[in-house]
């Protein structure tokens, strides 16, 4: 019974809750039990909020009984620990924010709270979302549910692993260069990065403000559409959120994709591409063709420069955003004789190596004398990358590619080589540079690990992405595959709270 409840999608759970076949409290308890059993092995959560979840579930049951349920009333949701919540610490997986209690909720959190969603906990991430493996968390490494010796991807690795492992049917993450899509791919779940401006970032600890977006994880495209609808829309607290109407994403799913034009970028044959992954993605494209879509070769000639452009723009913005962590207002504070020494000690000890690396890179790219050569140059190349997409979208409706060039890699394999680590995001970064929406959908297995198909769409056209992803999902059974966790559940350990 319990295992069955944690295997439900949010949409299936919604039906059962509304028919009173299960209560929100039972659904929540089933997930909390699974979290307690799996967490000593997975480490997907930084904080599990069991008591808060039970209280929210009881409230949801009252709402359902009163016939006032919304789409997410009583549905368990995991939140990346970079989203501010008033009732649990928000750490960004950094020692500089250990124990920080936000005085406000992020807008996305407030919206889910208003719907009566149940927050089961805050998930692990690379420190300040900087990384591709969740190994940069200052606290611990999250394991991939498909193979515990491998990374879950990152930076939203905790959210991806939690959804894949059935610890929650839904989760939120953030995506600056692929941090939703890449871990969704490594963990075999669906993940969507909305268009820049679609979702309010108020209460998302800022990394790179011209690139960051919040988005959903789920085990089905339908559920991703459900969660996207709940968080989308204009917010006066985020001036970059756009006042466009939010379409009915769920209603768009079942539209036919016959005649849809799907672009295949010629430049995506990259060095380091795993041939098994390439073959699996080719099969997925053939399936889309069988469903009536037309495959069209397109050219995105500046793709090869996207990674270099990203590693100027993102660190530059991060170096400015992270200046606020100074030990004066909140977080770690090391007292020294002078204020300058207090800054140096607090930041020197509070930030981990990847965050320091990026702050230095960004400070350098913005410093006088190098500003034009690096920062302005990167912004100009960004224009070229965006133009590539504009031209491609004159010919096609979506652009398809692998989400990542490889399957999940081993823990520790790439930590000493930043460039190798950064290459994991080579297919996801261009969409952030151009502000476009992207979805990662499970499309098979290579070496026994999940492979993912990425679809990128026109700005504010999440509908078409969801439509193509849904058609593919209905035609295949990859999304019904679950990681082999029964052995871990059998030898139930006692306790195992991550604190």
């Amino acid at each position, binding site marked *: 019974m319990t295992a069955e409840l944690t295997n439900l999608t949010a949409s299936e759970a919604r039906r059962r809750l509304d028919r009173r076949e299960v209560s929100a409290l039972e659904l929540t308890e089933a997930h909390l039990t699974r979290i307690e059993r799996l967490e000593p092995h997975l480490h997907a959560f930084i904080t599990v909020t069991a008591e808060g979840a039970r209280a929210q579930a009881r409230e949801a049951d009252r709402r359902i009984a009163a016939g006032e349920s919304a789409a997410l009333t009583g549905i368990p949701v995991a939140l990346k620990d970079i989203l501010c919540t008033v009732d649990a610490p928000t750490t960004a997986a950094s020692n500089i924010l250990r124990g920080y209690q936000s005085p406000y909720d992020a807008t996305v959190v407030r919206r889910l709270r208003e719907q009566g969603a149940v927050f089961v906990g805050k998930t692990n991430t690379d420190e300040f979302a900087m990384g591709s493996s969740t190994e940069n968390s200052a606290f611990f490494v999250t394991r991939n549910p498909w193979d515990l010796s491998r990374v879950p991807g990152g930076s939203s690795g905790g959210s991806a692993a939690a959804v894949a492992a059935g610890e929650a049917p839904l989760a939120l993450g953030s995506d600056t260069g692929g941090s939703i899509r890449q871990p969704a791919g490594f963990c075999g779940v669906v993940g969507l990065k909305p268009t820049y401006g679609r979702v309010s970032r108020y209460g998302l600890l800022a990394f790179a403000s011209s690139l960051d977006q919040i988005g959903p994880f789920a085990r089905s495209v339908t559920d991703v559409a459900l969660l996207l609808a709940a968080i989308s829309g204009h917010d006066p607290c985020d001036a970059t959120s756009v006042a466009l109407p939010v379409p009915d994403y769920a209603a768009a799913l079942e539209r036919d994709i016959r005649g849809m034009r799907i672009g295949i970028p010629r430049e995506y044959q990259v060095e380091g591409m795993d041939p098994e992954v390439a073959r699996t993605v080719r099969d997925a494209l053939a399936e889309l063709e069988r469903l009536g879509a037309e495959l069209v070769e397109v050219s995105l000639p500046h793709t090869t420069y996207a990674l270099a*452009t990203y590693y*100027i723009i993102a660190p530059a913005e991060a170096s400015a955003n992270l200046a606020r962590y100074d030990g004066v207002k*909140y977080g770690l504070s090391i007292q020294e004789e002078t204020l300058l020494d207090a800054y140096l000690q607090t930041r*020197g000890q509070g930030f981990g190596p990847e965050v*320091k690396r990026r702050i230095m890179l960004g*400070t350098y790219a913005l410093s006088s004398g190098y500003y034009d050569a690096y920062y302005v140059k990167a912004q100009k190349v960004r224009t070229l990358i*965006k133009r590539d997409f504009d031209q491609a979208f004159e010919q096609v409706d979506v652009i398809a590619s692998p989400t990542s060039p490889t399957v999940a890699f081993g823990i520790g394999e790439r930590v000493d080589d930043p460039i190798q680590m950064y290459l994991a995001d080579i297919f996801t970064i261009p969409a952030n540079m*151009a502000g476009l929406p992207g979805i990662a959908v499970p499309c098979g297995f290579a070496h026994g690990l999940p492979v993912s198909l990425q679809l990128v769409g026109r700005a504010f056209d999440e509908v078409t992405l969801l439509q193509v992803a849904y058609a593919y999902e209905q035609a295949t059974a990859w999304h019904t595959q679950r990681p082999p966790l029964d052995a871990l559940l059998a030898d139930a350990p006692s306790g195992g709270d991550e604190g």
Partner: protein
Amino acid sequence: MLARLGLEPEELERMRVQLSSIMEHIDRLRELDTEAIPPTAQVITLQNVMRDDTVRPSLPLAEVLRNAPQHEDGMFKVNAVLEES
């Protein structure tokens, strides 16, 4: 120094090596002629989003100061920056 990060000597050496390899990768951008290309700072067309200049409630002071290591009279407190003369 500009980044206000206190680094240990061995940390500094490791960063030097890693940052050099990243800079090497970044230098590929020089291949591109971008003389006539305008820069893109952000991708949505919104500009100068304004709101009415009206008084609205702020976050409660006590809630905001709860995280502060030192505060006094409703303000964050730091060590003296200027010498007393």
